[in-house]
């Protein structure tokens, strides 16, 4: 179908302001991404997939300003033994980063890939993103593939002893950043990737993850704090036979966050869990858009998303389980829940199932409501002050999502962040 | 009545042999008991006889009154007179117990070329039989086994047996999950059905059920075979000494 005029002009206007970086061997992938983007156009608020989230500020040429936030709280994961890779306003900072060598993993900067012939990531860059464009278009991901200025490639060949931590800091109030990472977990290998930091005034990040047969990847990220930042992220993962992928995201504040997660189970007996805990206060809009495709036999997928919203915050969940013909013995589960702490907040959800195989057990649930008054009363009757009781119940509400983090120390780190967030808002 | 000869059975999904040559003959009017340790193949035997998917007969035969059971669909076996009281009766939400029974009874009657039973006669018959098993009207109305206690499920199995009047009854671990009172009630129900034309095969792990349903013959099954056959005293021997002694003895 031809692009309508308005979409065409918006898209061309934006592209006119941008230049494809000097690109080496990703040149072809970037050109084809540009072609894809031109064919589909940038998202508009009339698109079904953007029904609940206005894409305007993500699409417009100029990134809206975002003030820099400062407080005494030390950044998340600080106390974790990790390998740090730091980007400041979207540019790799070798001084702040650790030495990139670690046993069991090969890490390169994206620009190194561009300069080398025959890099393993060459065939992967843009590939999963391309695949992830059907059946639903994700133009902002194509935009990223075409224009990403920096990023890393991570190839996990063994079992590195510590997690790899991608840290995004923000110093420029108008920074408009595109990062693109490529990850490959080789057969039988296992690693943990951490991500955190406010990143930029406007952040467009894409990560492509290819997990070979029997590989395992844990992914835990913490987004934002009180910045006026905006972010759109895409995570594309492809899972081989008996592989495992577990992803958890904590999102706290930020004016606008859209996290798209596109997972395809292509090998039998694979397992994918995606979870999110989100806390929003005030002028906050957070959107989890998840698309899990089962294209193999006997796979398991879980989507667990919890949102706590107050002071007019908006939470969005669009989730889908697609079971292709032949993907028998699928076990698919999806839950999305919101806790609305006051009457101005809202929750918008579209939890979908699309199933073309009969021997499956798929279910989804979605609820929205206020805090459980009975539970609150019970705690208060035992002497717990209302504010603390509310926090306790709120943390309990978020627990199902947080529990998706396997590592206990990391789980506690995240729980601590959530408790701190609530405590700071205690009246 | 029931003749099983050299029956060998594998699991379909994995290469595992469960039954390794079972020979058994149950005469009309007799109650045979099969005892054995867990994993000896007792329940598999009941499923293979009733035609559940997932098993492959590699050798041997099983006939009911001379008819080859193994060639029949499950419902044909039922119509031929084979009844299995399940160890774990299945819940069927939304389907009333009475509806289920009536559909089953008339399906069997039709398959045998008999007239269907009228609704009125059916109701009368079921109510009477239910009374003996202390199954109240409420239980009859509820969906099949949904929300039933362990005892209620087992009594319901016996009610179905009483209504369908099979020739050959297999009771698979009917005593599991029952307290003494419930077991007595179930045993009474079974005993009331004992007659010269009907055979019983009672599968159980413990001897206690056999205190209430007195067997004529007791078989001990181990590792996919019947390793010892005797009278009711064999069950007592198991009760007193456990399976270990017998298994050592026959090994």
């Amino acid at each position, binding site marked *: 179908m031809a692009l309508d005029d308005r979409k065409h002009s918006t898209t061309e206007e934006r592209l006119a302001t941008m230049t494809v970086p000097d690109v080496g061997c990703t040149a072809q992938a970037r050109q084809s991404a540009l072609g894809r983007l031109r064919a589909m156009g940038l998202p508009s608020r009339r698109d079904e997939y953007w029904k609940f989230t206005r894409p305007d500020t993500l699409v417009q040429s100029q990134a809206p300003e975002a003030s820099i936030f400062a407080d005494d709280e030390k950044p998340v994961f600080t106390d974790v033994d990790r390998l740090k890779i730091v980007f400041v306003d979207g540019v790799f900072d070798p001084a702040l980063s650790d030495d990139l060598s670690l046993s069991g993993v090969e890490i390169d900067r994206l620009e190194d890939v561009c300069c080398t012939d025959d890099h393993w990531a060459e065939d992967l860059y843009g590939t999963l993103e391309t695949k992830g464009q059907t059946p639903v278009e994700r133009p902002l991901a194509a935009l990223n593939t075409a224009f990403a200025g920096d990023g890393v490639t991570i190839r996990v060949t063994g079992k590195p002893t510590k997690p790899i931590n991608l840290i995004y800091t923000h110093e420029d109030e108008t920074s408009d950043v595109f990062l693109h990472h490529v990850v490959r977990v080789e057969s039988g290998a296992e690693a943990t990737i951490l991500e955190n930091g406010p990143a930029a005034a406007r952040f467009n990040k894409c990560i492509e993850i290819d997990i070979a047969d029997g590989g395992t990847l844990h992914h835990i990220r913490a987004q934002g704090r009180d910045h006026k930042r905006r972010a759109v992220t895409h995570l594309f993962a492809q899972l081989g036979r008996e592989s495992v992928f577990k992803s958890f995201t904590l999102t706290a504040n930020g004016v606008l966050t859209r996290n798209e997660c596109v997972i395809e189970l292509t090998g039998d007996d694979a397992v994918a869990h995606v979870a999110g805990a989100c806390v929003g206060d005030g002028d906050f809009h957070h959107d989890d858009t998840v698309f899990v495709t089962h294209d193999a036999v006997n796979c398991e997928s879980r989507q667990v998303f919890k949102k706590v919203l107050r002071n007019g915050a908006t939470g969005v969940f669009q989730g889908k389980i697609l079971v292709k013909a032949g993907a028998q013995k699928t076990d698919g589960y999806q839950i999305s829940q919101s806790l609305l702490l006051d009457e101005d907040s809202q929750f*918008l959800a579209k939890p979908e*199932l699309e199933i073309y195989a009969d021997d499956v057990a798929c279910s989804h649930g979605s609820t929205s409501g206020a805090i459980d008054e009975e539970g609150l009363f019970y705690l208060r009757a035992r002497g717990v002050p209302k504010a603390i009781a509310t926090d306790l119940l709120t943390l309990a509400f978020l627990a199902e999502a947080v529990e998706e983090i396997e590592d206990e120390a990391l789980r506690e780190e995240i729980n601590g962040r959530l408790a701190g967030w609530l405590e700071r808002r205690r009246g | 009545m029931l003749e099983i000869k050299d029956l060998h059975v594998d699991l379909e999904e994995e290469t595992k042999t469960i039954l390794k040559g079972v020979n058994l003959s149950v005469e009309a009017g007799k109650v045979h008991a099969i005892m054995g340790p867990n994993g000896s193949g007792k329940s598999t035997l009941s499923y293979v006889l009733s035609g559940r998917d997932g098993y492959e007969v590699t050798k041997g035969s099983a006939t009911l009154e001379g008819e080859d059971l193994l060639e029949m669909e499950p419902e044909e076996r039922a119509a031929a007179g084979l009844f299995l009281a399940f160890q774990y009766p299945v819940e069927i939400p939304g389907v009333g117990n009475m509806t289920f029974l009536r*559909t089953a009874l008339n399906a069997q009657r039709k398959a045998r070329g008999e007239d269907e039973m009228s609704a009125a006669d059916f109701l009368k018959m079921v109510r009477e039989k239910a009374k003996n098993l202390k199954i109240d009207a409420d239980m009859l109305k509820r969906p099949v086994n949904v929300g039933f206690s362990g005892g209620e499920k087992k009594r319901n199995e016996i009610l179905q047996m009483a209504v369908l009047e099979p020739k050959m009854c297999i009771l698979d671990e009917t005593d599991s999950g029952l307290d003494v009172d419930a077991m007595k009630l179930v045993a009474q129900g079974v005993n009331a059905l004992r007659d010269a034309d009907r055979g019983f095969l009672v599968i159980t792990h413990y001897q206690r059920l056999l205190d209430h349903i007195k067997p004529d013959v007791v078989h001990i099954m181990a590792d996919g075979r019947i390793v010892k056959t005797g009278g009711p005293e064999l069950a007592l021997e198991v009760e007193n000494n456990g399976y270990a002694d017998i298994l050592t003895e026959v090994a």
Partner: protein
Amino acid sequence: MAVLDEAQVRDQVKEGVDQETVDAVREVGGAYKYGWETDIEMEYAPKGLTPDIVRLISEKNEEPEWMTNWRLEAYERWLTKEEPDWAMVDYPEIDFQDQYYYARPKSMEVKPKSLDEVDPKLLATYAKLGIPLKEQMILAGVEGAENAPAEGRKVAVDAVFDSVSVGTTFQKELMQAGVIFCSISEAIREHPELVKKYLGSVVPVSDNFYATLNSAVFSDGSFVYVPPGVRCPMELSTYFRINAENTGQFERTLIIADKGSYVSYLEGCTAPQRDISQLHAAVVEIIVEEDAEVKYSTVQNWYPGDENGKGGIYNFVTKRADCRGDRAKVMWTQVETGSAVTWKYPSCILRGNESQGEFYSIAIANNYQQADTGTKMIHLGKNTRSRIVSKGISAGHAQNTYRGLVSMHPKAKDSRNYTQCDSLLIGDQCGAHTVPYIEVKNNSSRVEHEATTSKVDDDQMFYCRQRGMDEEEAVALVVNGFCKDVLQALPMEFAMEAQQLVAISLEGSVG
């Protein structure tokens, strides 16, 4: 059939599936039961859709000028609208100029003054469908009606044949209670003040492509007005029959339940078996005032097409109820077994405080049928309640989608919604999909949505077969159990018919 006492009958009916279900399957042998056609002389308007055709329809119905203008306005709007494409249905493009928009039996040229004057051929048609147009105690012929309670039940019937209503029973008796039940064409002539006030007030003329089309060309349908405080003394029903070839049926139903009144309305539909698909685009509007209650039940059994997907009705329907007053209550129950393509979302606008909306649905799609159906619950008033129970069954190569919206507006404080959507798949060539939209804009309301998709349980199947049922009987039994929550919501006569339909619709889906 032996005579049973009433309690016994109730027991049996309540239990869900009956032996009759299974018998019906055998009798019918899977064929669509209503696929024959009536050979009757028809009068057609020329093919295609123009302002002249709209005027002609209006003229044939002897409508006043305001109505003609209303239609023409709708026609103009329709020209600017696009066919919706968001549903998960796929069918060849419809040529809207290659349809007849008006077809009536010649014998209906002069309106029969009473049922006695109606063409015997038409009466015979309805008799054959099991709907004799006689004023009798029970709706005989609906299978199982002989089991109905001894005191008998009256059901008034409006029979619509292609584009016209051929007769309405029990009108006089209803009139005595103050209830108006007639064809919509009659209502436009006889009760213009009511029609003017309410028509298009729930489903605006330009609501959607099909509703707009319907507004321009609807030819007949039913009209119900229940005055304040009146409990309608009998069930009302409309029976729709498409007979003519290449003819679309566009019926319009308007039900007004005034303050404190109650009415239960049933709707049935069938069509002949033809290789070429036919269009059906209806609009139903229900107005429920303070403390009033309306139950609307549908057994939709339009011709579904053959086992290769040839023919069948395209069913594009807009149904909406507006609970205008406080404590108003509406309940939609639908059993959708027919049609090649179904696009239908009976909805509730819960405007009055403490108003309630319920939606119970069974949608069965077999062979190459496609169903995209569900509901919208729009909570506007305080303390409003809604409940959605949807059971979708897919078999053969069919696609079955539940699509729904639950919206809690900021002012709908303390409201509740509970949604349960279950899908069952029979065979590995079909699809089952769930597309719910949930919008919660206040925190005192609670919304719960649950959905499951699975196949018919192997253990349940084996259990039934061990007790002697063959596969088809076992599936019919288990599926009827799966649908029970919805079947229970139907009036008794419909419940029995629906049970049979469930079994018949799944014929040939096993093995």
